[in-house]
C-alpha cells in the first residue's frame, strides 16, 4: 500500500515532464507563410499560437514583431520588441526552482531568455524599428547593443580565467548603426570613426566598411545639397534549432550504467533513450541581396553587415559542451532518483524493479531538446548607403538570388532626402521576393 502511494508522485513527475511537439515543429507553418510572403497568414497563425501558448509569449512576440514590421507598423513592432527585451533581462536571472524542474524534465521547463545572439539582435531590431520612425531612441538602443555584447561576454568569465564566449563573433550591425547616427551630427566624427573601425575589424568582408571609415576620419557626412539614404535589408531565411541525438554521449552513459549497476548491486534504467540536444541549423534560402535602382541608375546592391546564421551557429558550437554537460547532469539526476526510490522501497530485483526501470526509461525518453528560438530572423542583415540630392526620389527595390536573378516583382518606394540628413529604409526579402512593404522614416 505504502509502495503504491509512494510510486504515485514519481509517476506524476514522469507524466508531467513528458515532452510534446517541439517549438520548431509547431512554428513551421508560420515560417512557411512568412517566407512565401503571406504576412496576413503568418500573423493569424502567430495570434493563434499566442492564444494557446501563453508560456511562449516572448518568443511569439519576437516573431510577431517581424511580421508587424513587414506589415508596415514599426511602432507596434518596437513595443513588442521592447517588452521582450525587458522580459529576457528579467528571465536571465537564475531561478533555482526552474533549474530544479528542468533537471526533472528537460530544458524546455526553464523560462526562455533568449540565445545570446537573440539578446543582441532584439536591441538591433529595436534600433532599426525606431530609425524608420522618428529615430528619437535609436541612439540609446545602439548604446544598449554594445553594452549587451560586452555584458554577455563578461558574465561568462570562469574562475580559472577562461571564457567560452570570448571568441564570440560580435554583431557589426551595432557599431554600424552607432557610426551612422553619430556621423549625422556633423560633429561627432570621432565617434563615427571609432565605430566604423569596429565594423571593419569585426566584419572584414563588408566591402564598404573601409569607405565609411575613411569618410568618418577625414570626410564629411555628404556633399552640400545632398543627404543619405540608408537601406537595411533583412535577407533570406534565418537559422532555427533542431533536435539532434548525441550518440557518443549516450553510448558513454550506457557503459557507465552497466558499470554502476554491477557495483551498486541493483539495476539502473539503461540509457536506451538517446541524449537529445538542440543544434542551430542554417537554411538561408535563395535570396542573396537587394538591388536598388534610382530611376535608370543602378545605385547598388545591399551587402552583408551581419550574418545571423553564421553567428548563431558559431555561438551554438561554442556553448555546445555546456549544453551537453547539462543534458548529462539531467540524465544522471533522473537515474539517481530511480536508484534512490529502489533503495528506499527495498527493490533490488524482480518485477517491481523492472517496472521502475521501464518507467525510468520512459521518463528519460520524454526529454526533448529545447528548440525554442526566434524563428523569423533573417539569414543576413544587409545595408546600402546612398548619397542622393535633396528632394524626393523613387527607389526601385529588386531582391536577387545567388545567381543575380530577380526574385519576385520589383517594388518602387519613394523617399525624401533632406540636406545633410539620414533617411532610412527597411525591407525584408525572402525566396518569394519582398515580404510585406518597405518602411521609411521620410514622409
Amino acid at each position, binding site marked *: 500500500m*505504502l*509502495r503504491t502511494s*509512494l510510486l504515485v*508522485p*514519481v509517476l506524476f*513527475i514522469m507524466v508531467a515532464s513528458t515532452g510534446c511537439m517541439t517549438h520548431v515543429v509547431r512554428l513551421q507553418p508560420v515560417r512557411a507563410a512568412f517566407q512565401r510572403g503571406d504576412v496576413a497568414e503568418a500573423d493569424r497563425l502567430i495570434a493563434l499560437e499566442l492564444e494557446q501558448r501563453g508560456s511562449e509569449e516572448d518568443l511569439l512576440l519576437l516573431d510577431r514583431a517581424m511580421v508587424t514590421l513587414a506589415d508596415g507598423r514599426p511602432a507596434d513592432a518596437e513595443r513588442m520588441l521592447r517588452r521582450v527585451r525587458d522580459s529576457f*533581462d*528579467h*528571465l536571465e*536571472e*537564475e*531561478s*533555482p*526552482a*526552474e*533549474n*530544479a*524542474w528542468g*533537471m*526533472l524534465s528537460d530544458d524546455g521547463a526553464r*523560462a526562455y531568455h533568449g540565445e545570446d545572439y537573440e539578446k543582441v539582435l532584439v536591441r538591433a531590431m529595436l534600433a532599426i524599428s525606431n530609425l524608420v520612425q522618428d529615430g528619437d531612441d535609436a541612439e*540609446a538602443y545602439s*548604446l544598449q547593443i*554594445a*553594452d549587451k555584447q560586452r555584458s554577455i561576454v563578461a558574465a561568462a568569465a570562469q574562475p580559472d580565467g577562461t571564457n567560452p564566449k570570448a571568441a564570440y563573433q560580435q554583431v557589426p550591425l551595432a557599431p554600424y548603426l552607432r557610426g551612422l547616427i553619430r556621423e549625422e*551630427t*556633423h*560633429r*561627432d*566624427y*570621432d*565617434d563615427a570613426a*571609432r565605430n566604423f573601425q569596429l565594423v571593419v575589424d569585426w566584419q572584414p568582408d563588408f566591402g564598404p566598411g573601409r569607405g565609411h571609415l575613411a569618410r568618418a576620419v577625414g570626410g*564629411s*557626412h*555628404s*556633399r*552640400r545639397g545632398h543627404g543619405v539614404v540608408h537601406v537595411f535589408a533583412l535577407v533570406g531565411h534565418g537559422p532555427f534549432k533542431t533536435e539532434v541525438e548525441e550518440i557518443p554521449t549516450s553510448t558513454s552513459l550506457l557503459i557507465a550504467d552497466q558499470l554502476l549497476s554491477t557495483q551498486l548491486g541493483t539495476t539502473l534504467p539503461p540509457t536506451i533513450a538517446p541524449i537529445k540536444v538542440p543544434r542551430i541549423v542554417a537554411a538561408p534560402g535563395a535570396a542573396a541581396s537587394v538591388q536598388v535602382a534610382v530611376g535608370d541608375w543602378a545605385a547598388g546592391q545591399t551587402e552583408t553587415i551581419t550574418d545571423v546564421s553564421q553567428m548563431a551557429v558559431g555561438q551554438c558550437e561554442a556553448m555546445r559542451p555546456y549544453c551537453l554537460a547539462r543534458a548529462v547532469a539531467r540524465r544522471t*539526476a533522473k537515474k*539517481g*532518483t530511480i536508484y*534512490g*526510490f529502489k*533503495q*528506499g*522501497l*527495498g527493490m*533490488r530485483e524482480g518485477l517491481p524493479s523492472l517496472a521502475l526501470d521501464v518507467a525510468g526509461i520512459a521518463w528519460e525518453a520524454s526529454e526533448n531538446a529545447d528548440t525554442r528560438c526566434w524563428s523569423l530572423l533573417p539569414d543576413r542583415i544587409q545595408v546600402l548607403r546612398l548619397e542622393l540630392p535633396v528632394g524626393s526620389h523613387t527607389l526601385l527595390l529588386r531582391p536577387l538570388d545567388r545567381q543575380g536573378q530577380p526574385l519576385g516583382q520589383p517594388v518602387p518606394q519613394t523617399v525624401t532626402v533632406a*540636406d*545633410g540628413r539620414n533617411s532610412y529604409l527597411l525591407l525584408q526579402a525572402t525566396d518569394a521576393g519582398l515580404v510585406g512593404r518597405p518602411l521609411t522614416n521620410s514622409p
Partner: protein
Amino acid sequence: MSLADRPHEPARLGRRAFLRSGFVPLAFPVLAASGCRSMQFARVMMQGEDAMIGSHQAGQETFTPLVNDAVAKLLARHVDAAVQQVSYTEGAESLPSPTRRICFVGVENKSAEDIGDFKEQIYQSIDSRILESTVFQSVNRRFVDAGLRDTRLRPDQLLVPEHMRTFAGHMEQQGQPIDYLLYATITSGTTRENRDYQRDYVLTLELVEVGTGTYDKQSAELSKGYHHSRLSRWRATNPLMPK
C-alpha cells in the same frame, strides 16, 4: 541478536531508510523550488552619498571632477583677464565689457575607452557651466549643429583660417556671431603592471579666438587604478607594502 548479526532484509521498507535514501532525490527539487528569480531594484541616490566607481572604465567619478576642474580653471583665468581689461578713466562713464561669445564645437574622445552616453553629458555639463558664468556666453548647440551641417565643415577643419572665416561668417549670418571656438578633448594613457593597470585621464579645453587664431588651453587630470582583485587593490593602497 546484535544489529550486525541480523540477516539482510531487502524487501522490507524502513521509514527512516526511505526518508534517508529514497526521498532525498525528490526533496532536492522541492527545496530548490522554494527559490525564485531575483528582481532588479533601483533607488534614488542621496546627495553626499558615495557614488559608484566604474570597475572597468571611467564613469562619473572620473568625468565630473575633470569637467569641474578644467572649466573652473579656464573661467578663472578669463575672469582675471576681463578684470584687467577694465580701466578707470576720469570723467568717462564706465561700460561693462561685452560678453564674449563662445561656440562650443564638441567633445572629442581620443581615449582608449568608448565613453558611450557620457559624451553628451560632458558636453552639456561644460556648456551649462560656461553659460552660468558671466565671463562667456555660449551659442546654443542647435545653432552650432546647424552651422556645421550647412557648411559641411568638420569640427577639426574649423582651425584652418579659411574654414574658420567661412564658419564664423555663416554663424553671423544666422544672427549668432562668435568670438571663440571651444574644443574639449578626452585623452588617456595606460600603464600596465601585470594584471593591474593605471589609466590617466586628461580633459583638455582649447579656446581659440576666431579673429586672431590665438588660443588658450586648460587641462585637468585624474588617474585611476584598475585592479584584478581586492587583494591587489589592498596592496596598491596599503602604505606599508614595499614599493
